[in-house]
């Protein structure tokens, strides 16, 4: 480097990290290579690059030795179990603090606002199998008095929560709706009982229940 006095500390640091040979003095480090006119300089490895490489190698070795020697501690299974346990405790704490939220209210709702809310979700999620008027298709007819898994708020809520018969019935909806929505939905389903759909599916199920 020429003219050292003029150079700030920062510049010096940068220079020490790159060690790039000065432009204009490149002849000093020019190799005698010539490939189709391409010349090659022989600049030293930039120190920041070299140390970076060393550091990543050190990290790699450290990381691997760590997880290999403590493979029990760093296993996916263990990580998963811890995550589930933590989740469980959080949920239990929340349940303890807000017991009223976890009582699935099985009271039949009959006010228009609740039924409209129930209808909205029914038309978004349920009509693919039960038809908009509850007449049934893939799923059973909801308007007659025959029930595969039982009628009434309690049973319908249970079916919504846990799903229908394995491999045949519907999926569990408990992850999609909260308790209020489930109550509205079940109430809406009951409001369909006794109506006359356009294409009623033949009755299924041996449990007889009617809202009358």
């Amino acid at each position, binding site marked *: 480097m020429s003219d050292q006095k003029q150079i700030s500390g920062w510049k010096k640091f940068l220079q020490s990290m790159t060690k*790039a040979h000065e*432009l204009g003095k*490149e002849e000093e480090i020019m*190799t005698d*290579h010539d*490939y*189709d006119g*391409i*010349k*090659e*300089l*022989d*600049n*030293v*490895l*930039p120190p920041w*690059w070299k140390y*970076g*490489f060393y550091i*990543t*190698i050190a*990290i*790699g070795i450290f*990381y*691997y030795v760590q*997880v*290999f020697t403590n*493979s029990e501690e760093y*296993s*996916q*299974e263990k*990580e*998963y179990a811890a*995550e*589930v346990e933590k*989740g*469980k405790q*959080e*949920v239990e704490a*929340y*349940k303890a603090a807000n017991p009223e*939220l*976890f009582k699935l209210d099985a009271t039949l709702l009959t006010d228009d606002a609740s039924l409209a809310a129930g209808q909205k979700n029914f038309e978004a999620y349920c009509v*693919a*199998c039960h038809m908009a008027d509850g007449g049934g*298709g*893939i799923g059973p007819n909801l308007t007659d008095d025959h029930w595969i898994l039982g009628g009434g708020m309690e049973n319908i809520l249970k079916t919504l929560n846990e799903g229908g018969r*394995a*491999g*045949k*019935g*519907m*999926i569990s909806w*408990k*992850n*999609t709706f*909260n308790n209020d929505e489930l109550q509205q939905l079940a109430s809406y389903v009951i409001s369909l009982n006794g109506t006359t759909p356009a*294409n009623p*599916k*033949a009755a299924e199920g041996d449990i007889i229940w009617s809202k009358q």
Partner: protein
Amino acid sequence: MEKEQFYYDNKIVKMFLIATILWGVVGMLVGLIVALLFIFPNLLEGISWLSFGRIRPLHTNAVIFAFVGNSIFMGIYYSMQRLLKTRMFSDTLSKIHFWGWQLIIVAAAITLPLGITSSKEYAELEWPIDIAITLIWVVMGINMIGTILKRRQRHIYVAIWFYLATLITVAVLHIFNNLELPVTGFKSYSIYAGVQDALVQWWYGHNAVAFFLTTPVLGLMYYFVPKVANRPVYSYRLSIIHFWSLIFIYIWAGPHHLLYTALPEWAQNLGTVFSVMLIFPSWGGMINGLLTLRGAWDKVREDPVLKFFVVAITGYGMSTFEGPMLSFKTLNAIGHYTDWIVGHVHIGALAWNGFMAAGIIYWLATKLWKTDLYSKKLANIHFWLGTLGILFYALPLYVAGFTQAAMWKQFNPDGTLVYGNFLETVTQIMPMYMMRAFGGTLYLAGFILLAYNVIKTAKAGSVVEDELAEAAPLKKISPARVAGEGFHSWLERRTILFTFLVVIAIAIGGAVEIIPLLTVDSNIPKITSVKPYTPLELEGRDIYIREGCNNCHSQMIRPFRSEVERYGEYSKAGEFVYDFPFLWGSKRTGPDVHRVGGKYNDNWHFNHMLDPRTTSPGSIMPQYPWLITDDLDVSQTVNKVNAMVTLGVPYTQFELDKAVYLLQNQAKEIENSLRQDPEFVKNYGNSEIEKKEIVALIAYLQRLGTDIKAEAEE
């Protein structure tokens, strides 16, 4: 010293250049169609050969092997002759290489839309094409080695080192990942199953990125950047260190595509640590490229070609930093299966590969047609359109990836998922998909400008098919000349030894990871209740493969609370022992299906395939009406079961002899269960649905992930 006169073969370079442009436009156009299908899933309604699952691999294959492949050959054929001071070894081999490669691309363009696929990512092409690729690659290899051996330049330059590494490693990867057992002329089964297949596949997939999309292009960089900038390469010793460290380390990093899966953790962690160690070897290339421009930055402002190179190399640096970051398990848990990965690979594809190719094409056009570029202004416009295109492509996908990952994982305080319905996480990121398509459009528009510019340039110039050159022949070197020669310089004269050392360097990592996994049983804990697929399920699985379902649906539930809550018990290594090939997938455009068996009833699946939006409003899945109208082909069922037996699947003699009979029985059962729905009876009651493809697919889907439930009951 008597100089010899000879001619460089420019014609072959010109052919590859034209092919690059042509396939570039085609590949990007297919990419744009694929992007539009996210926004308009009904765009190509009911056309089986244009369905998303079939043209997504068409896009990837076209861009990787047709566009980037041809661009690499273009650059290699141009630079190699000049770096070795000789014409290519054989014009005939050059021509066979060119036409063979184009035929392979055409074969891919025909077979992939027809659903002829092995399902393994970037290796989808079926076995006859795999053999053709091998043969053409060997032709290219003979041509390259022959050229090196008859050179008039004593040492081989760094670009040639990278070309050699490409030649060898791609051959090794391609052969070992495509070992498959043919069943018919266009159907085969991978010889590896489940976890083993996954590791071999991602050893291949990751190193296709390394040795098809990176090393050859680094070689091109080492020739074209100093050539265009007329500056010396920054550091010879950096090129030595980063070359050897890059090829040695890259091979090990494949398992970072399989973090948090059923792959044994010793292998996963190797993938992580080698990815971290890969940052600086990759960046060595970036530094050497960018610092070669030291003292030439005024030229960069002037010359569009150098602008393309600068953005390309910068994009390379970004991608090669992001890759290792994604290899940390913490970040991988977020990014895996999301659009973040798609954004990441497109920084590499659009910036590094696309812009390197564009810069080289502009520069070569002026050399090949001996004239100035038709319009520098258009090239500049292309540069800005492309750069904006990259930003509009990648940034929204980063947002989409993070958004979706966060939505997948979020719990309500009561322990339920906030977004229990997967679809909500898709509709949320629709605007991002629109921006991505817009970005892709910009990029394609820029590339079309390049095509126009090159055509105009070619029309104005006159092509020189054989360019005269002269160089002195190589003489035997005297001992005095080599006194004090460094080791690497000595090695650069011994090309056979050099090649051999490259083979060693790239063989170690793969061997250390793959051989133990194939031979040590404890890597894959056995689950006794896991049984082979029935003949009907096997046929259904082949339909799943044919339709490319694994492009959007994973079959690998990671051990996270949120995934187990959403999908069911996380996936175990022992569940996949009969999966030839594995179908874990690498992107979730739709939900994971590993535990979909028994979740819905048969009618739901039937309606879902007929029109996904009837069962899942807002879904962006294609419709599959042909599954309901096309008869299931059972002519090969026995052969398929037989092939499975050859691969070691324990079918009984009875199952083998009565395969079709068993298949028809199971099909009839499904048809009977479909009759629960009066709508089905009304519309399809007399359609003999038990003979259609749909029942096989339903059988397979209903089987998925159910075997371990039997164990739980035992």
